[in-house]
């Protein structure tokens, strides 16, 4: 059994994928418009957005599964060549496998499709497929199928891995397991481009994220910088009953949320000091630091999407 291969020398500076002025039109519906961004080699890049934002379309154009209406994709600075499919791994959001094949046979079949495939024992261990090797594909649970799909995405030692909503429908244990695998393959130096609806997942895994809405890229940066840019300060939440003074005298910007008072502060420490000086009971206090979900909702709004 091979040990995990760790490549500490991967260069963060090289761009592995460049998306330039991408546009995709389906009939009268424009799915993606003027999307441009770059992905550096060795990072985990997240493509976020509400339903119908154009994430999967953008992903599939990058994967060379569908053709763009206009714009171009560069892989390592060049148009994608014949070797592109040997160097990428894809886990689709919606796909299927031959029903009556076992997990083991499916792995063998895909293994034979590549020139330099991954060691199967390593993949089976990495994706925890040993207990289900003899099971047929149509007998797998959602989590087991996702693990198999991930193994197939990694079967050719890809340099670039696309994961389209990899954790959708998984229970918390399976999701955590998936995250561990993603971190492991990232530590091996692979570049990962993923779409997700889970802001927790994006914040946990992604070095950079691009937020899409209505087919456009509306923000693109590291999660920390996006939070810093779009959601400054923290919130201190206290029950109304904690205040024995008039709220108008508070030295904070504040608002009511049910029977809770939400105080905005640039610095949590400074805010707490002020509250203590006002002799306010902090027993039931909650502090909320802004996260990627706040940024996402701030940028894309709270309205429902299809």
């Amino acid at each position: 059994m091979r040990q995990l291969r760790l490549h500490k020398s991967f260069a963060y500076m090289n761009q592995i994928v460049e998306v330039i002025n991408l546009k995709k039109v389906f009939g009268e519906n424009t799915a993606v418009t003027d999307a441009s961004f770059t992905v550096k080699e060795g990072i985990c890049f997240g493509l976020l957005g509400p339903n119908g934002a154009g994430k999967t379309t953008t992903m599939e154009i990058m994967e060379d599964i569908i053709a763009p209406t206009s714009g171009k994709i560069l892989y390592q600075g060049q148009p994608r060549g014949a070797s592109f499919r040997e160097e990428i791994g894809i886990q689709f959001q919606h796909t299927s496998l031959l029903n009556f094949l076992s997990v083991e046979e499916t792995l063998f079949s895909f293994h034979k499709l590549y020139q330099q495939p991954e060691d199967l024992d390593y993949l089976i261990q990495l994706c925890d497929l040993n207990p289900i090797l003899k099971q047929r594909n149509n007998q797998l649970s959602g989590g087991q199928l996702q693990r198999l799909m991930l193994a197939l995405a990694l079967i050719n030692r890809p340099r670039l891995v696309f994961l389209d909503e990899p954790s959708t429908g998984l229970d918390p244990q399976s999701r955590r397991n998936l995250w561990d695998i993603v971190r492991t393959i990232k530590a091996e130096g692979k570049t990962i481009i993923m779409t997700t609806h889970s802001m927790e997942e994006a914040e946990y895994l992604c070095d950079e994220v691009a937020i899409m809405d209505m087919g456009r890229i509306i923000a693109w940066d590291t999660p920390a910088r996006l939070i810093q840019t779009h959601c400054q300060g923290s919130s201190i939440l206290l029950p109304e009953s904690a205040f024995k003074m008039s709220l108008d005298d508070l030295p904070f910007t504040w608002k009511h949320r049910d029977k809770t008072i939400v105080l905005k502060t640039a610095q949590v420490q400074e805010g707490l000091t002020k509250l203590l000086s006002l002799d306010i009971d902090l027993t039931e206090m909650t502090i909320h630091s802004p996260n990627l979900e706040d940024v996402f909702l701030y940028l894309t709004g709270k309205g429902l999407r299809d």
Partner: protein
Amino acid sequence: MNFKRMWAMFTARNHEFFRDRAAFGWNFLFPFLIIIGFGLIFGGKEHQQFKIGVWSATAQVDFSKSTVPLSFQQGKYLQFIAFSSQAEGEQKLQHLKIDLLLDTQSPEHRYWINDSSPQGYVAEQIFLASLQDKSTRLADKQVIKGVQIRYIDWLFPGILGMNMMFSALWGVGYVVVQYRKNGTLKRLKATPLTPMEYLSAQMLSRIFLIMFTIIVVWIGSNLIFHFQVHGSYGVLALIFFLGGLSLSSMGLVLAARGTSEEFTSGILNFISWPMMFLSGVWFSLEGSPAWIQAVAKIFPLTHMLTGARKIMNDGATLADVQSECLILIAITLICLTIAARIFSWNE
């Protein structure tokens, strides 16, 4: 063309087919049932072609006081059906349920026919001939010598061919469309596999399954009917192999772009039914209009069955069926090239 990738797809498809027990079983059962059925219907020595209605009070065929000549009563290929009344017999004749209606008691040999029935016309001529004195007949009867070909011997290649056609068109055409619809093809598109490799693997897998099916069905049916093969089994296998390839490649063209199972099903029916009737599965097109015979030559099944019957029934050699072989190879190459050109992995 990468043969390792093609082999991977070939074995995967074979595993899939052999494990789908319903589809697997039906592929053997269907031709076997048809052969048994037709063997029972046409395999017997009594092949009653014409239905002659008679009436009597007991609604049973009774020639005891009949004026019908004995030669007609005992005629070959005649089936007598009794009715309780003349009116009932006339109604059956009107609806073409019988070919001729006879009054068996009539001294004038009264009979009725339906003018729109070709069968009725022939039955009438047989009846009129039976009324003639044998000594006045002018024709000189001769009988064909040698081994006679039974209808089942003639029909058997047709039934095998029909099964091959359905297996190739539906097993390739319909299945590939299903794979496209459920995203199996999309997953394969993400690999270095090319359309030509994938389609060739599908075609070879299907021909492997078809040949396997033919061998099993042949052995099983031969135990019952003892088919006569006057030519070489090797050449016969070759013509079936080439026929299977051409039919499968036709299935690939249909599968190349389809995204709707319902639409594909309609197209498959649109092609398979005319092919079945015009390729000579059930009856020979000898004597049919020239344009129908010309249309029939479009279908690979026509050439396969012509070749197979020449080998089985006439003892033809490879040289005798080379034109059929070349046509089948040409159809295969043309269809495979078209399918690879227009093939789409995506829905």
